[in-house]
């Protein structure tokens, strides 16, 4: 359940940004989470809602944008789509690929007033 740590990090980041820039409320937060990232989205939403209480983000809604898994296949020398970390390259069936996207855990932006 490391999603609680992730939730705490998100709240710390956005509330300190809001404070520094003089905003009183955070209304909405957009995350970019890779499809292959080591995170359970339901647990992350639960954690976010628990941790946001009594902060300027108490009313903030969470929007999660899922980014696709992409890999560079060394044998094909091409970018391919990967849906699981143990997937073969969809072109050649090999496993000699390097992940280039889909592992993101990023706070993209927030809506404040």
């Amino acid at each position: 359940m490391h999603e609680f740590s992730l939730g705490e990090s998100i709240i710390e980041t956005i509330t300190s940004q809001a404070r520094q820039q003089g905003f009183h409320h955070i209304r909405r937060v957009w995350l970019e989470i890779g499809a292959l990232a080591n995170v359970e989205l339901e647990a992350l939403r639960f954690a976010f809602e628990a941790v946001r209480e009594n902060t300027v983000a108490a009313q903030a809604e969470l929007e999660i944008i899922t980014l696709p898994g992409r890999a560079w296949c060394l044998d094909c020398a091409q970018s391919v789509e990967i849906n699981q970390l143990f997937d073969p390259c969809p072109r050649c069936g090999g496993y000699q690929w390097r992940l280039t996207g889909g592992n993101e855990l990023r706070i993209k932006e927030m809506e404040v007033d």
Partner: protein
Amino acid sequence: MCANCGCGETEAVIHSHDPDHDQGHRHEHPADHHHDGLPHSHTHDEKRRVSLEQDILAKNAGFAASNRHLFLELGVFVLNLVSSPGSGKTSLLIRTAQLLRDEFPVAVISGDQQTANDAERIKAAGVPALQINTGKGCHLDAHGIGHALERLPLPKGGVLFIENVGNLVCPADFDLGEAAKVVILSVTEGEDKPLKYPNMFAAAKLMLLNKTDLLPHVDFDVAQCLDNARRVNHQLDILQLSARSGEGLEAWLDWVRQGRHAALAAQIDQLETELAAARAHLIHGGGTIRRSVI
């Protein structure tokens, strides 16, 4: 307050929030506000969009970078050992530390939710060790390790083993500043563990298949297990050993020795860079002092 990082803690403790105080509800988005989660511009004048583009784990990454810098300065090779509970991490660590401690300094940080049993076992074997209890926390983080280093003298020019909480999920995401994650799998577990917990095997540099002395007694397909691990991470180094019988230990010790050698080489490079910079200051920065002035 901690002077290093400004936290309110004096000890390495990972906070855990009690979810019971949460209302447990999920907000449903109003129909007129549903944009498939994609960024969109608002017409409300009072609301503003602030771009952040920041990694969720940025704070941990900052602490990990500080730890890594300290390890580099002191020439310490640091390994983060991860596994499910019961894979034999502590027994392997004790055996490893006993075999290496006459060659160079060795120390251990052990992470568990409760008890100091592991650190006590390691200390009883004559190896400096410190226990971190994470309470309800499911992983060690770089901030906790930074505080642990205030209480455990680093083995300069040697090896620090960090025994993470037994958990094949959560520790995968948290960089502690280590040179490498070592994932330990024992033959009493399933050979499909690399597929079930792919993030951990993808994050590791070395996999140790432990308890090979038990292979005659269990249904464990070694070839299938190694194949599964390489499907997830084709660059993964894999060694097979038994901490109990000692079989295969020498290859693992050599792997550690090579890593320690690389850490010392990196320390020397760093020192030479600093030395060259200091010399450059002396030459170009008015370092020549006339005798008459003195």
